[in-house]
């Protein structure tokens, strides 16, 4: 586009044509506004022409269609959280990440499917559609940001935003052969993101390279007075920083946590991750075994903390000011019971009920407070490991993409698929999944690199060092 060989309008039109051609099978989108996107593309081309005439720079994402998970507000567009509760909701304002994407020149493209209210690991909990994995349409794309992952993998968006509370960006990225980044807690504003578990949620990018993920992160990161948990820290020039680290030839010290390579890890994934570790060793990195002894308690702690927070956050859906309202309510109290019964799907109900229980009188100390203490121990494990190593390298998911329906009836089995990603959220760390191979059956495998707090530059440099010597991102699904 900078060379004038292709316009934003042409790019957008080709993305729309691709979406129309394949999304009947992929089902990544809840909705999209093709006319609105083309209008944005025309406006981008006009900005580029004006900038060229004036000799001034264009935005870092000028004219690039970025897909948006349907849980992030874009003014005037639907915001459903893939829930009947918000089936007809229209965002009255832009999320901060949306505003920043627009300021960077990007086109906010479409509303991407997810597990209802971002609760799930397969995108099967959507009230509207089951998204397919572009690598095997019989299988799930992962979740909860499964629509975002499937759209980028299928060529229906150049990049996309997702949200990650327990692995909801990294796990679908792994299952769809993409780069998926969860930034440090506090790095990106959540203003305008529908809250699930506020002490864990972060917004981050899906992209087809570490470089693209760094560009999107740079655009969306930073302090926001409207999200008081966003930290007042300078946003570094990630691309420049990554390049400087690459040139310095600094040999990284990488930790391999033995707890992440035990029972339940698919042998083909174990072998691919070992291959990536060998590649790091081959480029001069020092590989050390580290221990994260409380790993096995992460899922238990997570499903107390996340459900407790969701039961509180989702109390706002009462059928009064917005969202689904039951037509059969006898009185005001009944309006709450019936609107919530009709509006929420089963997984959301289960989590609200579990969260209500662990916070209820007589159980708070035994469950919620205890889980917060275990969280401290999990966080300490990571910080202890970082005294020895720059980053930690693990599989992203214990299995490749599973078949639709395989885990749908067993919530606990579904929860266990997040085993390698959840600790990162509890500890507030940045983590990225990058492609590191394929199974014999042709399913993508992800490598997770976990960084130190707010050291996304180092994290992305380490991920990029592996990516530079691998060719997995050159493969595309046949659709």
């Amino acid at each position, binding site marked *: 586009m900078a060379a004038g060989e292709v316009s934003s309008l042409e790019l957008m039109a080709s993305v729309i044509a691709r979406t129309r051609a394949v999304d009947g099978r992929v089902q990544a989108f809840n909705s999209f506004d093709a006319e609105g996107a083309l209008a944005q593309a025309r406006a981008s081309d006009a900005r580029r022409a004006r900038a060229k005439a004036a000799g001034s720079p264009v935005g870092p994402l000028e004219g690039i269609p970025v897909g948006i998970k349907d849980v992030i507000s874009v003014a005037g567009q639907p915001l459903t959280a893939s829930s009947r509760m918000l089936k*007809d*909701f*229209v965002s*009255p*304002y832009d999320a901060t990440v949306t505003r920043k994407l627009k300021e960077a020149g990007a086109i906010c493209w479409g509303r991407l499917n997810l597990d209802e209210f971002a609760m799930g690991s397969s995108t099967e909990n959507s009230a509207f559609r089951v998204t397919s994995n572009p690598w095997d349409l019989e299988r799930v794309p992962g979740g909860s940001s499964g629509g975002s992952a499937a759209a980028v993998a299928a060529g229906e968006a150049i990049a996309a935003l997702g949200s990650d509370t327990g692995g909801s960006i990294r796990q679908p990225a792994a299952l769809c052969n993409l780069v998926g980044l969860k930034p*440090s*807690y*506090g790095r990106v504003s959540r203003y305008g993101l529908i809250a699930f578990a506020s*002490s864990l949620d972060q917004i981050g990018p899906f992209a087809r390279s570490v470089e693209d993920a760094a560009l999107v992160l740079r655009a969306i990161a930073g302090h926001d*007075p409207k999200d008081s*948990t966003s*930290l007042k820290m300078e946003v570094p020039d990630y691309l420049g920083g990554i390049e400087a680290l690459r040139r310095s030839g600094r040999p990284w010290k990488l930790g391999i946590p033995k707890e992440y390579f035990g029972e339940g890890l698919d042998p083909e994934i174990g072998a691919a991750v070992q291959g990536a570790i060998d590649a790091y060793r081959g480029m001069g990195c020092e590989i050390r075994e580290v221990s994260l002894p*409380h790993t096995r*308690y992460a*899922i*238990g*702690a997570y499903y*107390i903390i996340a459900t407790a927070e969701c*039961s509180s956050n989702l109390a706002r859906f009462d*059928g*009064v000011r917005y969202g689904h*309202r039951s037509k059969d*309510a006898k*009185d*005001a*109290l009944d*309006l709450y*019971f*019936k609107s*919530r*019964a009709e509006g929420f799907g*089963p997984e959301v*109900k*289960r989590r*609200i*009920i*579990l969260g*209500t*229980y662990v916070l*209820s009188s*007589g*159980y708070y100390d*035994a*469950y919620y407070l*205890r*889980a*917060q*203490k*275990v*969280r*401290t*121990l999990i*966080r300490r494990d990571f910080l202890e490991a970082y005294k020895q190593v720059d980053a930690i390298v693990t599989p992203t998911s214990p299995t490749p993409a599973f078949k639709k329906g395989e885990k749908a009836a*067993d*919530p*606990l089995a579904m*929860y266990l698929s997040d085993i390698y990603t959840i600790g990162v959220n*509890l500890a*507030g*760390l940045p983590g990225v999944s990058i492609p590191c191979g394929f199974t014999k059956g042709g399913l993508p495998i992800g490598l997770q690199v976990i960084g130190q707090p707010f050291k996304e530059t180092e994290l992305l440099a380490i991920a990029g060092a592996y990516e530079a010597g691998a060719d997995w991102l050159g493969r595309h699904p046949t659709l």
Partner: protein
Amino acid sequence: MPKSEDFKLDHVANLARIDLTAEEKGRFAAQLGDVLAFIAQLNEVNVDGVEPTAHAFPVVNVWADDVPEPGLSVEDALRNAPEKRDNMFVVPKVVE
């Protein structure tokens, strides 16, 4: 940690303000029983003297300057209302 039989689904669903069908009650009780049994492994952890973590990076006393800014217009605030009249949300009668 409490026993999983302490979990009374009807009571908790009432606190959560969610009506459940008989079918949901049966299914959720079994599924949540499994989850609670799994969570019970947290009992194995010695947490004596450990401080709880509410946020990974606690930020306290975040102040904003007290500057008036335009908020949502009445029209925007009511745009998603299930029922509205005369610039207000309509709700079922609360007092007789």
